[in-house]
């Protein structure tokens, strides 16, 4: 049996009281090891998702059909790189370096959001990602602005502002296509048909199968359950789809007067598990591309470090 030193118990009591009082835990504060490792895992996974998430959209930068759209898309992909930077910095306050986290991404020991393993096949996918994927991300992330860990909560405030801007742009892109030519409308509908279910999977497994949820809720890292957030997202999207003049690919979608929510059909969790295991349509491509960029850039990073060492400048 392990004995717990009295000062340890006292620190734990301070931590618990801070969390209970809705105050923030800061980098120098004592925190349980499991709280620290849960946060490192979650923040790193979040950062990795921003970085990998650049790929499906960057796929369309060189083919954007107007200069205005091209500028919007470039700015968005740039924002995602910036979000990755904020988040790696937040993770670093917990004592794990960016290099170590990137290494875990490249070797498959840390994950990124399953959604980015789907391909962007047409221009309309850029709009569907903005509306649905960023929309789901915001639904997930807004509560994180009140997360108990200060650096993460503050990063999320900045990120959510930019994300909601991206989401509106995606919606407006789809609206333009939906009201455009017949071919554009069909392109928009096809994209929504392909992205709807994967977006619902972004909220994670159903509550009764979500292993980390209870502890994360107790620590006030997480504020709502996966299923609650998923329901909130569906309720927001249904009327938006109607305004867009597009349908959602779910025959079971019906308004439930009693619950005051939209009922929706069953999610294909077998597909979700396959994608998480690495068997989605783009898992291999995404991670290879990321590794390739990192490996091909090694000589550049080495040069910067060597130059800084010679000239006595600080390097990261």
């Amino acid at each position, binding site marked *: 049996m392990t004995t717990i030193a009295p000062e340890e118990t006292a620190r734990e009591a301070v931590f618990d009281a801070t969390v209970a009082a809705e105050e923030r835990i800061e980098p120098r504060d004592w925190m349980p090891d499991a709280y620290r490792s849960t946060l490192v895992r979650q923040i790193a996974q979040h950062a990795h998702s921003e970085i990998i998430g650049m790929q499906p959209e960057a796929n369309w930068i060189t083919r954007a059909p*107007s200069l205005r759209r091209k500028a919007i898309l470039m700015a968005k992909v740039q924002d995602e790189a910036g979000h990755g930077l904020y988040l790696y910095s937040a993770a670093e306050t917990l004592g794990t370096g960016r290099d170590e986290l990137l290494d875990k991404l490249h070797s498959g020991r840390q994950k990124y959001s399953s959604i980015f393993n789907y391909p962007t096949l047409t221009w309309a996918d850029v709009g569907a990602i903005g509306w649905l994927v960023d929309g789901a991300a915001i639904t997930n992330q807004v509560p994180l602005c009140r997360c108990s860990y200060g650096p993460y909560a503050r990063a999320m405030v900045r990120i959510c502002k930019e994300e909601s801007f991206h989401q509106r742009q995606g919606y407006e892109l789809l609206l333009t296509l939906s009201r455009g030519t017949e071919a554009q409308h069909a392109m928009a509908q096809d994209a929504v048909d392909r992205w709807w279910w994967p977006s619902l999977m972004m909220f994670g497994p159903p509550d009764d199968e979500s292993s980390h949820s209870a502890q994360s809720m107790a620590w006030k890292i997480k504020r709502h359950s996966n299923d609650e957030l998923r329901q909130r997202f569906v309720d927001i999207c249904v009327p938006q789809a109607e305004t867009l003049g597009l349908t959602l690919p779910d025959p079971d979608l019906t308004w439930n007067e009693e619950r005051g929510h939209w009922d929706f059909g069953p999610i294909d969790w077998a597909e979700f598990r396959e994608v998480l295991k690495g068997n989605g349509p783009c898992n291999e491509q995404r991670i290879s591309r990321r590794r390739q960029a990192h490996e091909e850039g090694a000589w550049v990073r080495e040069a910067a470090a060597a130059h800084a060492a010679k000239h006595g400048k600080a390097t990261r």
Partner: protein
Amino acid sequence: MRDTVTTPALPLGDDALILSHRLGEWAGQAPVLEEEVALANIALDLLGQARVLLSLAGDEDELAYLREEREFRNLQLVEQPNGDFAHTIARQLYFSTYQELLFEQLADGDTELAPLAGKAVKEVAYHRDHATQWTLRLGDGTDESRTRMQHALDALWRFTGEMFEPVPGLESLPWATFHDVWTTRITATVEQATLRLPEGPQRGAWTAGAGRQGLHTEPFGRLLAEMQHLHRSHPGATW
């Protein structure tokens, strides 16, 4: 019909448009996250310049998406493939140093380009600083980075001469002075980076001024094919 457009805004807009496109190809592939942000930032600045300039010449999307290779007036330098990071940096160093000189002059003038040049010159100073800093890091970094940076400077050198062929409509600008100042600035950076200025002719028989006359290098056709494909597939659509 578009051949009748003679404003100097067109060649300068084409430079910015095509270089922005090349930099956009880096998205998701940069050697370090900070460079994802920096390269996208520069690409966005250039795209912003291109939109203003092309709008002075006509409809920005019509000009970007519906002209063919022989109608583009950009420098051959900016259409060169990204290559490795050193090639991208060498291209940025050569072009941003040129663009800064040109825009400084235009900002002080009274042409229709003055307002754009006045705003863009601040962006371009940042682009030049970025390219200069990386030239120093790569040149005076490791053996490998020095070799790569020297190779990149050498490989792109022959495309630099055309920058000093007067742009139609801007013949009165001091082109010879641009060349002198450009050479002085590039030499200073290259020497500080412990590299040497490339040897050989700067104005090849084919490259000098060719891009400005619509004569491009082979990679350019593919760039346009990719850039224009979707727009051309839906004639008359709005996006």
